[in-house]
């Protein structure tokens, strides 16, 4: 067999194996809907029937019946900021869940005063296992939940008391210098970690910890009830849209997204017809190159 034939076969096999791996190996990246591991949001996503948004271009036309959940670990572009502002102003609900990301960029653009601190809020006393998992036991107004557990959260600033939904305990503090110990000058006491306010015709919900929704946390304490409470009245069926376009993605996730996109495009009729034509032409050329008689042979005289 010639070398170029071997290379062709190897290339084809590698491509096929790679595509199969990309298709079938599950994502392990944070907050990915397809991720069934501890740090994905598959459980939450299934429970609320969330739709994954790979780009904000796919947002619903009518925001009145939609809730957009955004975890901003990547910066928003100006166009995206405008899109979200228009969504909220049009009556949509935005659940902005952030801890150490770019949430303030969006809050600033929306013209609200609330800000994420961006530094860890730790509670060495009212916590689960370690101070990185603060327990929240104070809610305004009280709901069908007594306790939620955060995971590497941050606190909110510039929140009016009537906007606050959840407070940390008195023993919590913002670890500004990140030395895992409270020092003089660091803010300590009850800190808001979730708030709700109106923006235009819509609603903005700010939560200082997106990890509430991950597979391993959603069933801890009353986390699911709390997130459900944030999403609003269960009788009002709303589209829950989960923005994954601002999450850092591994090459596997990027490949998955691209592969799905290519698959979607290829599954439409025109590319399908084009593929059939290419195969047809290719086979024809191959057959013609092999040669030989076609049809009835003329008789030798």
């Amino acid at each position, binding site marked *: 067999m010639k070398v170029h034939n071997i290379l062709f076969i190897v290339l084809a096999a590698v491509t096929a194996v790679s595509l199969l791996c990309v298709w079938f*190996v599950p994502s392990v990246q944070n907050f990915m809907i397809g991720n069934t591991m*501890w740090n994905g949001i598959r459980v939450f996503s299934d429970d609320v029937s969330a739709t994954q948004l790979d780009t904000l271009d796919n947002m619903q*036309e009518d925001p*009145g019946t939609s809730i957009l959940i955004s975890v901003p670990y990547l910066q928003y572009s100006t166009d995206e900021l405008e899109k979200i502002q228009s969504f909220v102003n049009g009556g949509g609900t935005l659940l902005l869940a952030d801890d150490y990301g770019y949430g303030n960029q969006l809050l600033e653009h929306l013209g609200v005063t609330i800000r994420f601190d961006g530094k860890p809020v730790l509670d*060495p006393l009212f916590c689960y296992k370690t101070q990185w998992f603060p327990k929240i036991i104070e809610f305004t107004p009280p709901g069908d939940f007594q306790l939620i557990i955060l995971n590497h959260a941050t606190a909110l600033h510039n929140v009016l008391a009537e906007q606050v939904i959840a407070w940390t305990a008195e023993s919590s503090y913002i670890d500004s210098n990140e030395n895992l110990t409270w020092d003089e000058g660091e803010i300590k006491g009850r800190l808001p970690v979730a708030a709700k306010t109106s923006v235009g015709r819509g609603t903005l919900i700010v939560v200082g910890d997106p990890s509430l929704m991950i597979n391993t946390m959603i069933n801890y304490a009353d986390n699911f009830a709390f997130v459900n409470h944030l999403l609003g009245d269960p009788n009002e069926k709303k589209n829950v849209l989960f923005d994954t376009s601002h999450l850092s993605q591994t*090459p596997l996730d990027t490949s998955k997204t691209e592969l799905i996109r290519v698959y979607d495009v290829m599954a439409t009729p025109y590319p399908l017809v084009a593929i059939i034509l290419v195969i047809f032409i290719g086979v024809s050329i191959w057959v013609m190159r092999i040669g030989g008689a076609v049809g009835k042979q003329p008789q030798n005289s």
Partner: protein
Amino acid sequence: MKNKLIGSVTGAVIAVIMLAEPVLSAEPHEDPLKIEWEYSGLELFRYYSVVLDEVLKKDRDEVKSQLDNMPYVNLPPDLTSATGAFTESIKECAELIVTIEKELNELRVLVQQSRILEANPLENQIIADLLTAHRAVQLGENSIVTMGRAFSVDKEELNSPLRLAYTEVIQKISSINTLFDLYHGILNNLQIDLTAVISKSRLTTEVSLIVEPIDVFVGDYVQVKGTLTVKGQPLVNRKVEIMLNGLTVATGITNGNGYYEATFQVPYEYSVSMDVQSLYYPQEQDTTTYLASLSPKIALNVHFYEMFLSLDIDEKGYPGYETTFKARWTYQPTAPTIERNFEVHIDDVVVVQLSTAEEFIQKIDLPPDLQLGLHSLTVTSSAEGRYASGIARGVINVSKAVTGLSINLPKIMLVPWHFDVNGSVVSELGSLQMALVKVKYTSSTQEFRSTDDGSFKGTLRTHYTFGLVGSESWTVEVIPQEPWNSPLLFSQKILVINGINCGIFLTLLIALGIIVPKKFSIRNFQLAWRREKIQPEDAITGVHLAVLPVYSETAANMQTLGSGSDVAPVARIFSWYILLIRLVQRATRIILKPHQTLREFVNGTRKTLGPATDYLLEFTSLVEKLLYSGEQASDKDVDTSEQLTRQVQDGLKHEGT
């Protein structure tokens, strides 16, 4: 080499994919299942220190509130009993501080008023409370010491934060103990005063009490009278206080006979019983001469018209929608009807005020922005003279009415097309008026408005899309105008047939179906085709065999052998024979099996072939002779074989095969 190359490249690609995940920035969370428990004695002692501050501030509600959160604290399991004991003991201390202070104040008044009979039991009560308090403090301190041992406080340096926090808690517990000691000192002082009062030879006074009437309505006036005496002699011009449930409500001055009288109005407190007592306590110069005296309690039977108010309310409510309730009431005892004032509250907000004498049915509009969930509807009626107040409460579950949609969307749809659509939107509260109905299909949206009866109609146009045939979804969104109706999002799967695309695709398929069979040999197709067309002449010439690629070379040779004169006779004979056998196989549909001899095969064809079998058998004998005897074939043999072939062919024609 090839396998190694494939293996290494495949492995490299898989490794790149699998190892891609660690390329991450700092994690925004940890897996809680993989981390170890960590406990902070420092924060625990700091928290306790804050709680003890509240104890010393005598804010027992705050103390209770903070200690009630202790179940949520992250603590080592072996400290559960110690922290539980601390919580209970400190709560008790906080309660006792407030109680003992109140009791001491009361005792001080009693001592000042020389009310020995009342002071003695109170004094004993305070002693018992102080004893309990000291025990509680001791229990709290022991619990802290246990916790200190658990966190190895004694191994810490003296100025370490943990040691300092621990010491601070111990000191604050000590301060609480000191506070109780202080109370003890105050008690001792009061006891001394009390002893002084008892020890001095003062005269015992007596005060009697008569109350008229005993059965009264609220608001009525009650007359009290009695006498103040000392050793049977009247005490003249002394002040006697009339107390109702411990509070002074009137004062009487004794006359020359020691007789006093006073009148007071029964307060509108709507309590069925009140205690009346007369109190004399020595003032000014009397303090060195007389002791205080308290009359026996006389119970006043207080009457009023108790109101039993009840509500019949709709359990379900809708924001912005009216809800109806019926209020009715009775009095006990039965009373004349009077007009009463009522207030209706939703949660804590007054929504309606009205006055009526009869039971009533009231409609109220719930606020449009009312939060969904449970809300209280409270009706109150303030007290009116002898008529006590009334209150009744009900719970309304406020939710939005579920919107229902009826629409005649087709199950199968041809695109691009247009068709009439109609339907209606209703909820349990009636038709949705002027509701916006958005029908979405792929990227196009069409909007309709419902009429007063909730119906809507219009024409739906489906645009050209790239689809062929498949399942698509209609999405119908209903946005009501009324705040009490919930929006609706409804999806329905339909089978979509794209007429244009299907036409193009079918044309293409048909074109391919015609071209491909012509261009490429499809063995079975051609075999079948040729079976119909084959002629004995073709079999003899072997022309038809040339189309079969596997035989193409042989066929060409056989053609040559069978027809050329320069070929060896044996080859020509064999070629005739092979062609003849094939012809027979196809004509008779009997296959020469691998285990059969030529003769067995020929004999097997007799039933189908008939008399021609004899010619074929003769030809077979000739071939066997040439094959196995080693004889050379002659030209005569060639002629014979050709003749036999013709005869078999004729036989086949004759048999109609």
